[in-house]
């Protein structure tokens, strides 16, 4: 089989071509290719990537220049010379790497897998997938899932706020219905509030010595501002507390926390101290059901995740290479016969990918 892949990605320093292509609906691209006699094509279009995969018979002429010309016509602009062009094995390898998140700006991000799936589904709907691209894209989706479940590529956050959120999830599970108390209304507090709100924390309570700033921060995240003096009482309903006040001495003492724990009916309490000097007395960590993490603890976890990320990339790469080789053997068997059976032994989302391949 013959396979050509054109791609414009975040690696291009000039993003004009990507912008122009993003404005062209994928369906139009597919329709245009269909009317010009191409049998199989899939386009993946995201905010920082545009990829076109075209497949045909082994002897078919799939000139990249011709495909670029078609895209230029649709985008009504010159796309310049930046397209990365890959053929056959290189194109297969690239698609698998893209689906695995290895080619993303944030390596290991999971969104791209869904975007590849969408691109494939649109092509299926347009009748532009046949045996070759069906097998190839199902394999790519399978590899993407496999890499994410079997390597640490997608786990292990790389920033202090996201590590904090991840820890909160190991304590509470889902954060919906949980309440976060923010002490202090500085930039760090805001960053933490933003992450917690994004992960579904239902209630944000902000306490700050200056009422106005507490009020403003709370308003930005649909939270509730409370008077500074009342924060010990707020500890009773909070699940996560993030403290970053500029106070010279600890504001959350062991006495305050023990008193709150008594009234909490045994719910776990996750305290995060990102202030310097510290806001929370170290001894509260010894209380049953109370977990205190300080800025340096979170930073140490980030550093560890950074280190293991490199290992995970290598592991993901091995999976991609192995699966690309399997696909190459299958593609060769199409022309030399007998056709190899390319069973995906694993399942994705509980659904066997071993579907009937039409075409």
């Amino acid at each position, binding site marked *: 089989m013959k396979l050509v892949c054109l791609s414009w990605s975040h690696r291009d320093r000039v993003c004009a071509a990507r912008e122009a292509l993003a404005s062209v609906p994928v369906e139009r691209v597919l329709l245009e290719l269909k009317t010009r006699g191409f049998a199989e094509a899939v386009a993946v279009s995201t905010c920082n990537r545009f990829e076109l995969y075209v497949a045909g018979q082994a002897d078919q002429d799939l000139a990249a220049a011709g495909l670029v010309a078609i895209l230029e016509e649709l985008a009504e602009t010159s796309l310049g010379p930046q397209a990365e062009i890959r053929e056959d094995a290189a194109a297969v390898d690239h698609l698998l790497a893209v689906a695995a998140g290895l080619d993303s700006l944030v390596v290991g991000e999971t969104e791209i897998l869904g975007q590849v799936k969408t691109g494939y589904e649109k092509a299926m709907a347009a009748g532009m997938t046949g045996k070759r691209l069906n097998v190839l894209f199902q394999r790519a989706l399978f590899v993407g899932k496999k890499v994410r479940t079997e390597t640490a590529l997608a786990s*292990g956050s790389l920033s202090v706020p996201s590590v904090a959120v991840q820890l909160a999830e190991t304590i*509470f599970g889902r954060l919906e219905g949980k309440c976060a108390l923010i002490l202090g209304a500085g930039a760090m507090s805001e960053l933490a509030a933003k992450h917690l709100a994004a992960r579904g924390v239902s209630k944000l309570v902000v306490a700050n010595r200056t009422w106005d700033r507490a009020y403003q921060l709370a308003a930005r995240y649909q939270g509730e501002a409370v008077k500074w003096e009342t924060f010990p009482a707020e500890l009773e309903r909070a699940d996560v507390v993030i403290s970053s006040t500029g106070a010279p001495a600890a504001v959350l003492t062991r006495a305050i926390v023990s008193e709150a724990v008594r009234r909490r009916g045994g719910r776990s309490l996750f305290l995060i101290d990102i202030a310097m000097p510290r806001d929370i007395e170290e001894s509260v*960590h010894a209380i049953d059901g109370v977990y205190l993490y300080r800025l340096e603890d979170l930073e140490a976890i980030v550093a560890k995740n950074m280190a293991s990320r490199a290992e995970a990339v290598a592991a993901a790469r091995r999976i991609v290479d192995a699966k690309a080789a399997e696909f190459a053997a299958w593609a060769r068997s199409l022309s030399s016969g007998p056709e190899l059976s390319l069973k995906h032994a694993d399942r994705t989302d509980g659904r066997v990918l071993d579907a009937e391949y039409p075409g």
Partner: protein
Amino acid sequence: MIKMVLSWSAFALYAAASVAALHYLLTKNERASRLMLTFVGCGLVLQFLSFGIHLAAFWAFPENRWFLPINNFFGALSYMSFALAGAFFTIEVRRHLGILGAFVLPMAALGLGLAVILANPELAPLEPKLRSYWLNIHPMILMTAYATFTNAFGVALALLIQERQIKSRTPSELCYRLPSLDELDALNSRIIAITLPILVLGLVMGAVWAYQSSGRAWSGDAKEIMSLVTVGFYAAFIWLRYVSGRRGRTPVYVSMAGFACILLTFFGAGVFSDSHDYLGGK
């Protein structure tokens, strides 16, 4: 003979499922998790068949007819490993907590392993004092409760590991794979809260049986005393967890002490108990 082959195969399957479960816990390899489920499922079927054969042979003695063959270690351990694996299947797997297999399945394998390797599978007519319909009630209820408590113990182990991980401030990859502290705590407490009344019911049934057969509900033998201590520990757990609202390690340790009592009650009975020594097969 066929019965032993089936039991040995079921044991091998549970052992293999435990290995797969450990592999799943350490690598999060989805294939290992599916293997684990397949092994457990097949093991359950084989054990069920083996039980049928065991039952037919047991009932070949006319005086044993309609009584369940749980009057010796072989029968009791086989039943409990079956109930434990079954409980894992219905509780954890349905709640997508199959990752806990690494903590629960080794105990099912161990139980069945003890039965096939150490216990005497020979069948004999029941002693006259056991020929009572109560035999189908009192020990069955208790063994079901033991199996479920064993499951809770597995969950409690995972809970302690997770708690230590988070307290340590240097959580490993394992921490992100295990269910959250809250989920584990809820599962452990719920299993215990549901099983404790079953345990008490089984003990009361035993007292009724004893009263009917000997005129005394309480004979004060070691096994009876240990059972009350077991109830005491689990009741203390329930009180700590639901009434006084304690979390963290203390209640978990208390529930584990309850489980230690169960082990002592079950395996020690033949040594220091008079009216409950039948499990030794005497």
